[in-house]
């Protein structure tokens, strides 16, 4: 099977599973959990491309998510823009900001890049918090309308779920194709060795910027969908803590692995639902999973599964 066919098959299977999931769940409530998990997955795929393929860290992705969410919230609520325009403006503003920030920032590397993106995230967070007239300040922005596109109102959680699942599927498909393209090969080359890539004529800065802007765009898409799902946005959802959680999702899922990103995001978003029963020790378990996961599953959930699968195959061979 060619990679292209494999990808299409994988995406088709994922879409089928996502479509069937609400009917397998015993309770409506889990649909809302899944919506938020899928939104996280959208951001994490982008961050995974950036971290795993382009080798660039960003501790400020929460800010891109927030920028888009606030933009559409403010435009549609305060200024009465049509929903479609709000969504486009939200994503567009995020992408433009990422482009401008990317020019000086991506010249940095390693820990300095981490600091710069972290600083950017914090500045945006402070602006959300302090420009009270515009954003509603720390107690949040209330009354964002539920999503309505071209006359169809996504009133029920189930309809919203299908929308988000559809967007996620598209983003997975887009990302998988991107990796198999020329751009994907260039990105991997940069990750392996910047110098070698440069020598072979790859415009490193342009590629890095492209991926940075693309991943911010994914976060923007998730952000606008988030604002119109929750009908409420507050700065605390887009802070440093969230940006770190996103990185953890990338790493736990497995770097340079789109499916891993999806798995990592869903796993860590749904996990607290199971931990809630333990309440007080929830944070301990969360920390423990991170530490042990990194120690014993260094290539993430996806990598771990692949390895187990390969090991099982290898064991089976002698029997035949």
């Amino acid at each position, binding site marked *: 099977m060619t990679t292209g066919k494999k990808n299409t098959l994988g995406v088709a299977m994922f879409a089928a599973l996502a479509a069937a999931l609400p009917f397998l769940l015993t309770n409506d409530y889990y649909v809302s959990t899944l919506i938020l998990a899928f939104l996280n997955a959208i951001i994490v795929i982008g961050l995974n491309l950036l971290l795993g393929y382009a080798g660039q860290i960003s501790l400020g992705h929460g800010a891109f998510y927030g920028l888009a969410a606030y933009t559409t919230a403010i435009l549609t609520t305060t200024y009465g823009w049509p929903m479609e325009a709000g969504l486009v403006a939200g994503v567009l503003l995020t992408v433009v900001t990422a482009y401008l920030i990317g020019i000086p920032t991506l010249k940095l590397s390693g820990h300095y890049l981490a600091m710069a993106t972290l600083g950017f995230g914090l500045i945006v967070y402070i602006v959300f918090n302090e420009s*009270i007239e515009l954003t509603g300040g720390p107690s949040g922005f*209330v009354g964002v309308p539920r999503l309505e596109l071209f006359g169809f109102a996504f009133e029920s959680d189930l309809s919203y779920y299908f929308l988000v699942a559809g967007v996620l599927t598209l983003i997975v498909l887009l990302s998988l194709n991107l990796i198999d393209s020329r751009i994907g090969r260039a990105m991997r080359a940069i990750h392996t060795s910047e110098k070698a890539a440069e020598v072979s004529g790859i415009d490193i800065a342009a590629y890095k910027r492209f991926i940075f802007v693309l991943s911010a765009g994914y976060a923007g898409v998730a952000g606008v969908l988030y604002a119109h799902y929750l009908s409420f946005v507050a700065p*605390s959802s887009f802070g440093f803590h969230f940006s770190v959680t996103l990185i953890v999702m990338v790493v736990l899922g497995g770097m340079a692995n789109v499916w891993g990103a999806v798995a990592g995001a869903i796993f860590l978003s749904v996990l607290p639902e199971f931990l809630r029963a333990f309440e007080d020790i929830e944070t301990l378990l969360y920390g423990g999973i991170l530490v042990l996961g990194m120690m014993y599953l260094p290539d993430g959930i996806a990598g771990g599964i692949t390895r187990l699968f390969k090991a099982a195959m290898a064991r089976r061979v002698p029997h035949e």
Partner: protein
Amino acid sequence: MKAMRAMILLALCLMIATAAAASETIKIGAVLSVTGPASFLGEPEKNTLLLLEEQINASGGILGKQIELVIYDDETNVNKCVLAADKLIKKDRVVAVVGPTVSGNTLAIMNKFPRAKTPLVSCAAAEKIVKPVNPWVFKTPQTDRHAVQKILTHAQAAGLKNIAILTVSNGFGQAGRAVLKELVPAGGMNLIADEVYGPKDTDMTVQLTKIKSLNPDAIICWGTNPGPAVVAMNRVQLGIATPLYMSHGVASRKFIELAGEAANGLMLPAGRMIAVDQIPADHPQQPVLAAYVKDYETKFNIPVSTFGGYAYDALMLVKAAIEKAGSADPSAIRDSLESITGYVGATGEYNFSKTEHNGLDESAFVMVAIENGDWKVQR
């Protein structure tokens, strides 16, 4: 043998399960910030609910039915709060919800309740929760407006005219700041400084220096621990003699412990629970508070907090509403809540109506000063 034992066990389990279903409990939900930045509010609230559940069930439940509380922790996180509210409404199918602890979370989930036709009794302070009135949403804590009025009345009586404010940049501080900026000029006083500090800041000498150079007659600080304790200490460090008012957000022993000697001479509005022993014996709240404080401290072996009182009132109001309606149907509870008047709780006397979903007024506060490391209720 083993199979036999398993069968018997299974049968037993089934019997218990059906017995529980038959006795029919009243399921009441709660979503509180038990952990995270607002845990100092959420934890006493949770403890209070657990205490009440035990007491109510021991004394025969409500309308002869036992109650079952389903309590979720939102970790002071708005996403988790939304999920928890969904869970209570859709999965647990509770008849009413108590909480959330903080204003932001309440504002985020409020609009779900009319759709779910379930009443929400919030433990958060912001005025926006009940203004404009959402028919399904009530709240038990005093409004910031009442606290500010109490302070300004006191300041006016003392002839203080030029006011400086120092507020924390979170939901609590933001709400207080908005009311202060409105009421200080409205009361004929001058707002001469408007400074802000971060919730995790550990040094406010810069803001205080700036304020000091403007020579105000009084400083009003709006925040919750530990920030105001630092402000109190920094004020002593800088040798500022200007009177300093605090908000009701620091009305706990913890504040005096943290600020130490620097707490002496500060004034704040607080619920009467803060000094149960100083309430006159004939005050209607006296028996309620004395019993609550004693039971709480016996059960948990930690000092009571005025914040727990918000949850106390929320659950007891729901109980009163169910009893008054003679039904635990969510719509009946809502209608009945709206008709409650003269209910004396831990925080104050509640008088609800179609247009008033907080039901408290300024009298729910007393002005206290801190003297020799203890509260002293002002006349």
